[in-house]
């Protein structure tokens, strides 16, 4: 290999420094919202918005269904509170939920004022649609491209603010921690391979989830948990990582998401006998076709609906297709006009990837990994236990979503906690002592050494793709919808082994410019860190709650596990697990009732 690209092998410190006030890692919904809030609150602040992709490529764009906020007269904050807490199987922190539900409508209105093309009622007010696990219609939507419109509205609005400096296609590497607080981040400019360090008074991580550690996922290629892993390595614990949401309606071949709005608008799910099988899993009695009723049958929460698929599979009730075992999502009765108006993307996806027109035929679907309830532990102010470090969005676990997120809460979470992280960061940076540049440089040099070691490694034996495949297979096999002690034990030891082997991964491409081989190697490292936290947390949680279902501990155990799993990074050793109590303010743990008889 010619040595032209081997800048990192030369001696000496070669990291450019950029000074800023607040560095934001991730330019999706939460990162952009935080940036705008910072710019509007204090126009004098220097804001560095760092992302490994251009903002409009962020995965917020793939969210389809909508965003929940109480706005209609028949709805109330209490109902949104109850739906969220119950939907989360009482693992949500209730102070956080309280804050969230009150901020939600304001944030959605704010987006409206920034131009978001929400669907409308005939009188010009914002329209809402029903969603799974929600007792009232409260999901604001922009056809079935709500996340896309939210992301673009935020991105375009962010262009108004000169104090937001974007660093597009910068891959963030390590947080700079000194004096017990986070003071910046190192990153690589992808188009040149140049390392840079951002010296910042506060850092906000908005880097999204890590769904790509699973082989079958709705998540885009960029969802590799880099932000989570970065915080975790820097000493911030990951919380409730074992709670992985399966979305019940994924395309069986590509895993592309068919929005929950398919069911919200009245689509039904049937097995190979044509039976609406959800009635057999505590979500009945059957409701009339085309008249969806809230919090019942197809409008049950995602965890329950996905779990029902697993049972149907065990019973042999699924339909065998060339894409594997599926159940059917039938939307034919909605009619072409409604489908085109409200579910155009769904029609397009089913038609291009499966060759099925949802107007004429039911679509085969199966559950697919979609979202991580867990993440960097934050409190209601979006602060992590590491001073100076804030987090928002899917990468954070503020404990809004508990053990199962309700559809259409996460798009609002981006907004509410993106903004909150910005406000907290501003508070934090008041009166900070001056940074010790030499100490930060020393941290940055450690990053440089890490990259240099990767470039100069000669004893590599492990292939990136081999390790990645083993990780994905392990996660799918052992940390799926239903889990067992034995499977989880195997998962923990396998992921731990993979982390050891990762030290010998081979970097094939050793050149500087847009080296995606390098970024995929680094992303694999992030995913392995996250995967270990997931498996360790899942093994330790000996109960079934929300999306974490164990065949050996089938009941919820509030006496021992009404608390958050906190996983602490221990270098290459197995991480340390401890627990944090759930904040309960007014809703004691109760029964999640999604039967038609509920009040």
């Amino acid at each position, binding site marked *: 290999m010619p040595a032209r690209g081997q800048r990192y092998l030369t001696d000496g410190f070669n990291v450019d420094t950029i000074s800023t006030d607040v560095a934001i890692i991730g330019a999706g919904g939460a990162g952009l919202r935080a940036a705008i809030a910072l710019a509007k609150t204090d126009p004098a602040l220097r804001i560095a918005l760092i992302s490994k992709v251009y903002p409009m490529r962020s995965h917020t764009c793939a969210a389809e269904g909508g965003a929940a906020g109480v706005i209609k007269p028949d709805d109330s904050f209490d109902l949104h509170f109850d739906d969220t807490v119950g939907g989360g199987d009482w693992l949500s922190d209730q102070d956080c939920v309280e804050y969230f539900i009150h901020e939600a409508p304001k944030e959605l209105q704010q987006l409206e004022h*920034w131009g978001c093309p929400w669907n409308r009622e005939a009188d010009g007010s914002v329209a809402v649609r029903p969603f799974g696990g929600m007792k009232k219609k409260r999901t604001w939507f922009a056809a079935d491209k709500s996340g896309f419109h939210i992301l673009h509205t935020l991105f375009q609005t962010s262009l108004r603010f000169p104090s937001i400096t974007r660093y597009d296609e910068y891959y963030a590497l390590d947080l700079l921690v000194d004096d017990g607080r986070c003071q910046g981040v190192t990153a690589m400019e992808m188009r040149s391979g140049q390392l840079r360090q951002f010296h910042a008074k506060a850092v906000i991580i908005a880097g999204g989830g890590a769904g790509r550690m699973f082989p079958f996922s709705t998540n885009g290629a960029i969802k590799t948990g880099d932000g989570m892993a970065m915080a975790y390595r820097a000493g911030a614990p990951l919380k409730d990582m074992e709670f992985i949401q399966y979305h019940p309606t994924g395309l069986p071949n590509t895993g592309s998401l068919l929005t929950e709005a398919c069911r919200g608008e009245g689509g039904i799910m049937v097995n190979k006998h044509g039976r609406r099988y959800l009635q057999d899993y505590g979500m009945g009695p059957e409701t009339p076709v085309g008249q969806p009723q809230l919090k019942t049958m197809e409008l049950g929460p995602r965890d329950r609906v996905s779990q029902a698929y697993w049972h149907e599979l065990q019973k042999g009730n699924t339909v065998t297709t060339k894409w594997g075992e599926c159940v059917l999502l039938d939307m034919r009765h909605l009619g072409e006009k409604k489908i085109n108006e409200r579910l155009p993307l769904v029609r397009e996806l089913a038609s291009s990837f499966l060759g099925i027109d949802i107007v004429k035929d039911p679509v085969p679907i199966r559950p697919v990994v979609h979202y991580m309830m867990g993440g960097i532990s934050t409190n209601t102010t979006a602060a992590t236990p590491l001073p100076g470090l804030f987090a928002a969005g899917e990468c954070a676990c503020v404990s809004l979503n508990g053990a199962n997120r309700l559809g259409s809460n996460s798009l609002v979470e981006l907004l509410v906690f993106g903004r909150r992280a910005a406000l907290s960061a501003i508070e934090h940076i008041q009166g900070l002592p001056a940074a010790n540049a030499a100490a930060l440089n020393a941290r940055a040099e450690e990053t440089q050494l890490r990259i240099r070691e990767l470039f100069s490694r000669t004893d590599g034996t492990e292939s990136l793709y081999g390790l990645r495949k083993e990780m994905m297979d392990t996660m799918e096999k052992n940390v799926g919808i239903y889990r067992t002690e034995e499977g989880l034990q195997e998962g923990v030891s396998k992921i731990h082994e993979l982390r050891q082997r990762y030290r010998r991964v081979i970097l094939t*491409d050793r050149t500087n410019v847009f080296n995606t081989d390098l970024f995929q190697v680094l992303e694999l490292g992030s995913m392995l860190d996250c995967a270990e936290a997931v498996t360790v947390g899942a093994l330790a949680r000996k109960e079934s709650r929300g999306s974490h279902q164990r065949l050996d501990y089938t009941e919820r155990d509030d006496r021992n596990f009404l608390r958050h799993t906190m996983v602490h990074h221990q270098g290459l050793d197995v991480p340390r697990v401890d627990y944090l109590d759930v904040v309960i303010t007014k809703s004691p743990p109760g029964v999640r009732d999604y039967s038609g008889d509920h009040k």
Partner: protein
Amino acid sequence: MTQMKQRQVQLEVLRYNPDTDTEAHFQRYEVSCNEEGVVLDALNKVKETVDPTLNYRWSCHMAVCGSCGMMINGEPKLSCHTFLRDYEGVIRVEPLAHFPIERDLVTAPDDFMEKLKRVKPYLIPKKKKPISEGEYKQTPAQLMKFRQYSMCINCMLCYAACPEYGLTPKFIGPAALTLAHRYNIDSRDGGRKERQEVVATAEGVWDCTFVGACSEVCPAHVDPASALQQMKITSSIDWIVEHLIPGGKSARDTVSREDAGDIS
């Protein structure tokens, strides 16, 4: 379970690495792919099994993030939505035309990003009101008027298709101008005057000669050609009103206001 059928796919990919190459060159790959797959799947297969040094952008695999635009047999396409079943023989894959190549299939979109910012693609409210007073009313008909133009995923296929942009790089181009139009015709917006200074110029809509290629390649069915022709008509009317009607004041004289009252 019946297995999905596999087929052999031959790709001819334009390679360029500034660290090692002075010129771009084609490289041939052959991989076995699921016959229902897309060109992106074939590229991923190449990267995983044949050549890890091949570089390209992608993320969502559902034609909404706009990352994976490239020229496929000379046509600008999203590779995640270009089905192998529609191709026979060798598939030629090149980076998006009209943009500088950083490496392999990765181009530099800086020019587009700068132009997008110039057209002020954000709501400049006609009448400012605080959040506490609720939403701006907008009827479904008013929404439908602009919705199509709000669907742009910024994939830049239209720039790669537009010969005008290729020949006259100063041209602001289809996607950015269309987003200006999207806000101009939004019933809540009063910012047309500000945008006209940028878009109703020789570098703006008047550089468009209506080839129409932008609309033919748009994966989101935005129809930029339509937006640009409509902008030409409104700009012409502005000119007539201003220059030929005594005391005439065109619609572009509507005032825009400060955005006081937003929450942070």
